[in-house]
């Protein structure tokens, strides 16, 4: 399946008074893959998602989702026909029963997939006649997913989907997202849970203080990112290691730890030319990259 850009923002900015929640964000999300939108609490993930869906108006900048402008209310409304959204708190109309809410939601989408609805109803064991207010958060998440996936959306956006869920529910949620992506739905989800992003995402965008600080494929990251630990007989100045491909340098006595994000072979060659007494190379996980990137952005 060919991959095209499904979400694109250009200098997208949201200010609340003097506080800049999202700052000149240039985000690109490609189709037919799962993209994790990673960031600390308050980094600007939810605000970005709300701007993409037209819930919040950008202060500046522009964005396009599925070829429709997010700044134009009419186009945004058209876009929402093909986009499903699952919000952070998964609050649904408490006064409706599961069945009433399904009936309500399906009335807005002519291409509602009854087979998907029935399959997920069985799979999730949702009680049709129970009021939404009587559902647990896990059940509400399943219902929200059912409402989202039964439309076979081109794009599924989830804001902190695993927030407040128990481990079993998280696992079911992640499996549902993997299955949705396998069915051709592009999945874009925000999270501050690194492990779950690393588990299912193919691409990750890291946002910190409203700014995009990393946009990388997880395969590329696994292939390119290396931690190189060098031991020397005497202390080394940091400046010696400031070369392309080194994202971070840590020195501790006679030990130098480099975080390389590309060019690892050339860096190793350079390091060897400095005649270290020991060299240790290790792969780097998303957790380390995230922590280093966020720390560096400060």
């Amino acid at each position: 399946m060919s991959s095209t850009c499904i979400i694109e923002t250009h200098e997208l900015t949201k200010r609340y008074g003097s506080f800049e929640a999202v700052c000149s964000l240039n985000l690109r999300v490609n189709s037919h893959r799962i993209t994790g939108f990673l960031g600390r609490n308050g980094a600007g993930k939810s605000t970005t998602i709300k701007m993409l869906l037209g819930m919040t108006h950008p202060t500046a900048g522009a964005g396009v989702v599925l070829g429709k402008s997010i700044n134009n209310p009419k186009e945004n409304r058209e876009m929402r026909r093909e986009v499903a959204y699952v919000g952070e708190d998964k609050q649904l109309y408490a006064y409706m029963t599961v069945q009433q809410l399904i009936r309500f939601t399906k009335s807005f989408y002519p291409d509602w997939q009854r087979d998907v609805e029935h399959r997920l109803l069985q799979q999730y064991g949702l009680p049709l006649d129970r009021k939404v207010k009587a559902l647990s958060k896990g059940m509400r998440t399943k219902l929200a997913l059912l409402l989202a996936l039964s439309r076979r959306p081109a794009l599924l956006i989830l804001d902190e989907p695993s927030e407040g869920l128990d481990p079993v529910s998280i696992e079911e949620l992640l499996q549902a997202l993997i299955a949705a992506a396998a069915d051709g739905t592009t999945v874009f989800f925000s999270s501050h849970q690194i492990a779950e992003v690393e588990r299912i995402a193919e691409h990750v965008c890291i946002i910190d203080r409203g700014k995009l600080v990393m946009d990388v494929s997880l395969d590329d990251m696994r292939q390119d990112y290396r931690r190189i630990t060098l031991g020397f007989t005497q202390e080394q100045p940091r400046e010696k290691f400031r070369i392309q491909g080194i994202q971070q340098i840590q020195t501790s006595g006679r030990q130098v730890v480099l975080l390389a994000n590309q060019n690892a072979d050339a860096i190793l060659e350079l390091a060897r030319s400095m005649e270290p007494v020991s060299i240790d190379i290790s792969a780097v996980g998303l957790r380390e990259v995230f922590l280093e990137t966020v720390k560096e952005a400060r």
Partner: protein
Amino acid sequence: MMLWYKAWRESRDRFLLSAVTIAALCVGFVVFHRQGAEISDRPLTYLEYIWRIVYKGYLRELFVLLALLLGIGGLLRERDHGTAGFTLALPVSRPHLVLVRAATGLLEIAVLSLLPALVIPALSPLVGQFYPWSQSIQFAILWTAGGAFIFVIGFVASNVFGGEYTAPIAAFLGLLLYSVIVDLPFLEHYPLDIHDMMSGVGMPYFKSSVATLAGPLPWAELAIIFLIVISLVALAGRIAEHQDF
């Protein structure tokens, strides 16, 4: 169609409670008309009694309060309850959401206005009295217009102020301010007081000596009120369009 269902479900409890209260009070006022009429300092005819207690008095005041409360709701309230995200992700424009909610509320107001018009003339013969249908229907028309105006005060307040209690308090204060302003001596002579318009007090179409609507209803004024209501609903739509959720 399902948006109407949603608007109905969100206001249903308030509406039904209001309807039951109004109907029950009407029944009570008719059944206990003798005891009620005795409270007055002079003997009242049945027409006077009904007008005093229903169309001018307690029931009208209660109706005003209920109309104001029916106007409360909407997207800001949904934001407080956490459902605004779900609603706004639907492929529906915000003005459309606002319009459906307003139309549902206005229909409910019309039904509430009709309740005394149905209950009082229907029950009166059972207690040996008579209340003309023409009177009650005309009062229902006046109440629909007045109720729509009061409703839209609550409706606009709900679209401006978030928070569980802020909108009802703002709406109530707005209504209070309006009532004080139209009672100012230099404004008293203009037909601006919606309360007087609903009860007929001091209006050319009301004959106070017999407590009945005697002249043609003020159709031009009623049309203006509905225009104001429509304009304020449109304003609420515009406000909602520019809000961040």
